[in-house]
């Protein structure tokens, strides 16, 4: 019976998939088969397998991995500690609010903060260390990216930790498990769905980051997202831009299928 409720609830969602996912994919694939003169060709796919793009693909992967890793490392303890605070839902909201202020403005603020004459170097100078240019380094790039994704990682983890049954933890403790074992064997497995969700909403968009690669990394990091942006808006080669986008989507789907959920399937 609930089965039918659920199937009916899929209708608007499937309509959305049809109109705003399948149709655009069809368009992108169509454009990826066109050359500059609008003739059908496979040359775009051929040019994707050039050293430049292969290198870019690896760069994108590597940085997306680093960003996701650091975001997780910082967010998990934050989410965990937040669930233990008194006004936990209020604090959670206060984690989200900064993400509502325009990203470009915040990035400009970071340029100021990281600058030679910015507050960070001012503090560093007090300790007698030479001011250093922090901008346009891997550190600043990953820092700002992690900054952007933190709320997206904290929220799903918080949600799965929040409803965690405390008796389970007490039980584990009573049975003599150390706090680390309790965490590893009881807490973490129960929050794995939240973590997965957080990783997805961080890793997938991180693959196609573009604006920050220029603003914070000064184009020293060139990702597939940057390349697509350039092809569409500068070279006006929509064919090549679409081709890279097709590869991005394929890569994402492979990741999804490899890490896919096998459980579930509620009737």
């Amino acid at each position, binding site marked *: 019976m609930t089965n039918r409720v659920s199937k009916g609830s899929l209708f608007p969602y499937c309509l959305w998939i049809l109109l705003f996912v399948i149709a655009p994919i069809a368009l992108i694939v169509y454009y990826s088969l066109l050359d500059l003169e609008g003739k059908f060709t496979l040359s775009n796919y051929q040019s994707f397998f050039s050293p430049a793009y292969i290198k870019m693909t690896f760069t994108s992967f590597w940085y997306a991995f680093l960003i996701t890793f650091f975001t997780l490392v910082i967010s998990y303890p934050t989410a965990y500690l937040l669930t233990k605070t008194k006004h936990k839902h209020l604090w959670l909201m206060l984690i989200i609010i900064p993400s509502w202020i325009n990203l470009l403005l915040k990035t400009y603020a970071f340029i100021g903060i990281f600058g030679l004459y910015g507050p960070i170097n001012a503090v560093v100078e007090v300790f007698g260390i030479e001011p250093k240019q922090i901008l346009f380094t891997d550190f600043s790039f990953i820092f700002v990216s992690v900054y952007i994704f933190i709320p997206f990682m904290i929220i799903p983890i918080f949600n799965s930790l929040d409803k965690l049954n405390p008796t389970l933890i007490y039980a584990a403790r009573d049975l003599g498990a150390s706090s680390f074992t309790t965490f590893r064997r009881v807490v973490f497995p129960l929050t794995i769905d939240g973590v997965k969700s957080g990783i997805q909403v961080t890793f997938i968009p991180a693959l196609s980051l573009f604006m920050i690669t220029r603003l914070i990394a000064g*184009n020293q990091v060139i990702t597939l997202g940057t390349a697509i942006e350039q092809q569409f808006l500068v070279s006006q080669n929509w064919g090549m831009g679409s081709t890279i986008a097709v590869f991005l989507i394929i890569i994402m789907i492979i990741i999804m299928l490899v890490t896919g959920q096998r459980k579930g399937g509620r009737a």
Partner: protein
Amino acid sequence: MKPLIQATIAIIIVCALLLFAANRLETAGSQGSKDTITVYNWGEYIDPSLIDQFTEETGIQVIYETFDSNEAMMTKVEQGGSAYDVAVPSEYMVQMMIEKDLLIPLDHSKIPNLKNIDPYFLDLAFDPKNKYSIPYFWGTVGIVYNPNLIDDHLTFTTWEDLWDPSLKDKVFLVDGAREVMGMGLNSLGESLNSKDDELLKKATDKLITLSPNIKAIIGDEITPLMINNEAAVALTWSGQAADMMWENEELDFAVPKEGSNLWFDNFVIPKTAANIDGAHAFINFMLDAEISAQNNDYVGYSTPNAAAMALMDPEVIEDERFYPGEDLRDKLEVYENLGLKWLGKYNEYFLKFKMSIR
């Protein structure tokens, strides 16, 4: 369930209230007039008080929309779906839009103030006889630098100065294939419109030898960096340099003698126009000597309007860095529309250069 319903109702009520407020504000502004034009321009690229003045004088309401790149703007005009009456593309984009048949020819009889424009800036190759476009602002590409942060002997009268070993990790480039490749070609004494694969390769190799000096390749963020003394040397457009120098008096600007780019932002009337008469009236209004002088004062870029220049502070218009003299002017080249194939090549080489930085 209850909190969900409550939240839904709260959102709908808030939206209704906001919609009401927005409507009140909009009708209060428009005084019920039906004559409107839509102006499509770069952000902060006009004195907003002039828009009000235009409405007062002509009764035509102005809807002001903004874009941040020529290509994105063209995509919008090409796809249609929205009426833009006046747009302000750069010169190479004017040429591209003419080729794509996206512009309406201007009726010069409706723009008598065209006579105010310095003839030097009229009838250029990208739009012969100004059939489709009239220059709004113009400028060059050059080097903005902070003399206090670099060696004294560097004055950037030549592009070679960028390669000076003392500038290690100090040079910022603008993220534009035409600008950077153009600089590479200029430094070899070649035209920045070259369509010769060998030359482009040579220019790229030359640029790659610049890599050790390059700190970053960025966009508009260069402005705050230069103002804040974070960056010592940057390749950028004269207009942005003027903005920077306004804020930081230490800075200086130079256009190297080998030559550089001369660019224009121009008024055009796109095919999407719904109020062609209104569009002409707006362009004519903006070309008026006094109006233009006021606008130049606000925007701070170089103006092609000779009549307006007569009304402006002589110190501004006699500044050779932004109003270069005859001999340098002869060395400046306007970007030609290279066609998509060559544009792609320029970008390919530029990408190769960018990836060589690390």
